[in-house]
């Protein structure tokens, strides 16, 4: 079920009304479990069984980790949980990718092997719910969480419908405490939740789908060379589209959860105003970057190792972060590029951090522009279907096709330009504060005008229920 669909509107109204009408907390939680499974099953009902299996296994494994008498026992159960989760993910998401690469490797040594094409359907949001569930056993192993005694509560923590299929990645340790006591219906919280849902839908339907996705799709689907202007316009359009698409989903999820009395953390914090790549990853897909930091980067030694090892750790983490996004080498290159960016940034810091000009507004502005430009270059690999396309795009962007084709209309170029300048200006204006603080500074009439504009724009735009980009991950 997509947030930008009529089915979701009907589903949400029924669930929210029932939820706040029921007095008993246990019944309300049961309702949310049923609603979440309906929400998930509305894509492909059999996959709900897979979701339940993963969840039940982790619930049991979490208890085994807690019960184990010694560290090696705990580790064995944790390894079982990690293997179970990653093998599910591996089979459904990376099965064909691994087979193709195996075939390629065999061909390199002269063995011709034709693997069967596995007709595997990727369960929606498997990367997200696997991480929701995995965080539970990892936190129990780390000693920062006690296992819950209620399977129902754990099922709800993993499958809570606002965050189930495209994040934010909500750790069980952040969600389970909220199930201890019933939240109270607070008008301001509920209405703010609705306001966030409106903002999220506006970002998705109006900005991502209507103004940016068409040109981005055409540019990245064009089989010929393009001039620099069209190449850059396509990349900028995609940079805006993926932000509004994914941040829009996250804001909708946060808003929907808030209307039900649950608090989810921010997943984006004005990323296109980042100065440097560490800053970017503190602002982009925060729930994934903190997950990778806590469960991968720090266990690998984090910053507390020799510089070369630290650089390697960064590259390993970003390599896996890239692979998490999709079973293709283009995603891996995207991750490796970000890993390399992070390493280069550390080197720059060593040499220049203490220079008197390092913190000047001009330096910050240049660094901000450089960060945005480098992030856009990395997006080419994220969006391109293969390396031929990526290489053609990059060549076009850097003037390699002066006689290439022009395929965007003037209107589309204007749209991309206006939205890009708008999003960057907004991010820079608000980069040092939270979104809530920025809203609080606005007078009531401005909030009313913006809210009315966004709500009417959603109706006026007549969305087409395009899937959110991150569903495929």
């Amino acid at each position: 079920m997509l947030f930008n669909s009529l089915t979701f509107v009907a589903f949400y109204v029924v669930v929210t009304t029932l939820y706040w009408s029921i007095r008993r907390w246990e019944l309300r939680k049961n309702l949310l479990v049923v609603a979440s499974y309906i929400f998930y099953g509305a894509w492909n009902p059999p996959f709900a069984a897979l979701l339940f299996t993963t969840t039940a296994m982790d619930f049991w494994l979490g208890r085994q980790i807690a019960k184990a008498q010694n560290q090696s026992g705990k580790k064995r159960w944790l390894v079982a949980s990690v293997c179970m989760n990653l093998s599910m993910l591996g089979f459904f998401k990376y099965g064909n990718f691994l087979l193709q690469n195996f075939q390629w490797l065999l061909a390199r040594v002269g063995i011709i092997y034709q693997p069967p094409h596995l007709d595997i359907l990727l369960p929606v949001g498997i990367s997200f719910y696997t991480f929701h569930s995995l965080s539970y056993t990892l936190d129990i192993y780390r000693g920062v969480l006690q296992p819950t005694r209620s399977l129902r509560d754990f099922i709800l923590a993993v499958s809570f419908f606002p965050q189930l299929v495209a994040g934010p990645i909500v750790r069980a340790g952040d969600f389970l405490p909220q199930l201890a006591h019933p939240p109270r219906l607070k008008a301001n919280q509920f209405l703010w939740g609705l306001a966030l849902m409106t903002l999220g839908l506006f970002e998705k339907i109006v900005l991502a789908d209507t103004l940016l996705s068409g040109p981005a799709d055409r540019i990245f689907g064009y089989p010929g060379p393009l001039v620099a202007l069209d190449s850059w316009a396509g990349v900028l359009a995609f940079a805006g589209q993926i932000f509004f698409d994914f941040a829009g989903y996250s804001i909708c999820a946060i808003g929907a959860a808030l209307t039900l009395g649950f608090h989810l953390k921010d997943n984006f914090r004005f990323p296109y105003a980042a100065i440097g790549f560490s800053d970017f990853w503190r602002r982009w897909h925060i729930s994934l970057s903190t997950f990778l930091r806590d469960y991968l980067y720090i266990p690998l030694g984090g910053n507390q190792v020799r510089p070369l090892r630290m650089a390697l750790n960064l590259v390993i983490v970003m390599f896996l972060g890239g692979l998490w996004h999709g079973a293709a080498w283009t995603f891996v290159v995207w991750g490796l590029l970000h890993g390399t960016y992070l390493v280069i940034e550390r080197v720059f810091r060593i040499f220049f951090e203490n220079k008197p000009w390092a913190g000047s507004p001009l330096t910050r502005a240049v660094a901000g522009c450089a960060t945005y430009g480098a992030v856009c270059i990395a997006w080419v690999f994220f969006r391109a279907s293969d390396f031929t396309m990526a290489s053609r795009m990059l060549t076009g962007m850097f003037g390699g096709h002066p006689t290439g084709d022009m395929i965007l209309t003037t209107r589309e170029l204007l749209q991309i330009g206006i939205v890009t300048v708008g999003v960057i200006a907004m991010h820079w204006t608000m980069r040092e504060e939270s979104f809530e603080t920025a809203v609080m500074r606005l007078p009531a009439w401005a909030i009313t005008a913006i809210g009315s504009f966004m709500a009417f724009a959603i109706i006026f735009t007549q969305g087409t229920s395009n899937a959110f980009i991150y569903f495929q991950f």
Partner: protein
Amino acid sequence: MRSSISSFKERLRLPRLFFRRPSREEQIHGGPPLEFERPIPLAQWRGISVVVTIIVIAATAGWELYSRSLGYAPTLNDNEDLWTMARRRVEPESIVIIGDSRAWFDCDLDEFQKGLGKRPIQLAMAGSTVYPALADLADDKNFHGTIICSFVPHLFFAPPGSPPMERAEKGVKRYHNQTPAQHVSEYLGMWLEEHVAFLKPDDLSLEGLLNQLPIPNRSGARVPPTFPPYFQTEDRERRARMWEKCAEPESELAKRIQQIWIPLFTPPPPPSYVPPDVFLAKIKEGIQQRFGDTVAAIEKIRARGGKIVFVRFPHSGGLKELEDKIMPRQQSWDPLLQMTHAPGIYYSDFPELSGFNCPEWSHLTAGESVEFSKRLVPHLRQALKM
């Protein structure tokens, strides 16, 4: 009064609370102990919500009234979900209409039912290639019914990856992969479209209006052709009828659409990145491939006892001249019938099927489509040996 934000900041400094019972002071509004609580901006949310609701309702009602004043009325929009609904109704012995917008506009289901004894199912789709639907019926092992297939060369031979092919494939794909959520959304959407006039994505949506902005393009830019605006109504059986505004004599809308067909039906210049001779060879190869695939699909259907008849529907004016010039009958229609050994009805071969008026050169008006269908039925019966 303390703001929610300062309370939030203080809370972040608290130690983890999950493992112990919080003190009264640590509890938020008497609620549960939380490690994290989202700040709620202080504002008059109730008042703001009421005013926003009033403004949005007023703006929506105003937009609806304005749309109706322009002549728009509630009707269904064609999409892959509506096509899927129709496809689901296909039974083993159904009569099915497939093809492009000419079959969609020009076939009257009531007249076909009267004349053929069975109500046909309308699967023709505007601006689409017929092959994906034909192949889908051929692969449906239960289907052994009758197919009435429209033929427009420009669309019939559209290559893989082209918009007509993608449009048709989208419908077939949706039929096979429609999720329960999409199914429910379609029913809810139909109800809305039957009551709200401004739900016209081609004309009255943000994208539709942006497309109408008269902004000139860069010279030499290979921009996609403009598609015609909304000019038909559609019901739940996917019966399309030309909008009266387009059917009026000397209609401005019809004239506008005529001028859209010409560039839309003119083959685009060869791409800059493929040598012209290679491109031409590929086009010829693609046409032969489509002939071959069509023959194979028809043989599958015939092997199960099914039948097919091709129909060339009326078209006129500059569009007819263009179609005849680009793809003459001898190079398209005749070889198709020869290769498939299928019967065909070319409207201009029969005086009673000729002389119909296509206001925008490509489709019949709702009234004329009824008469045309009535006159077409005896030819269909004869061709299909019914």
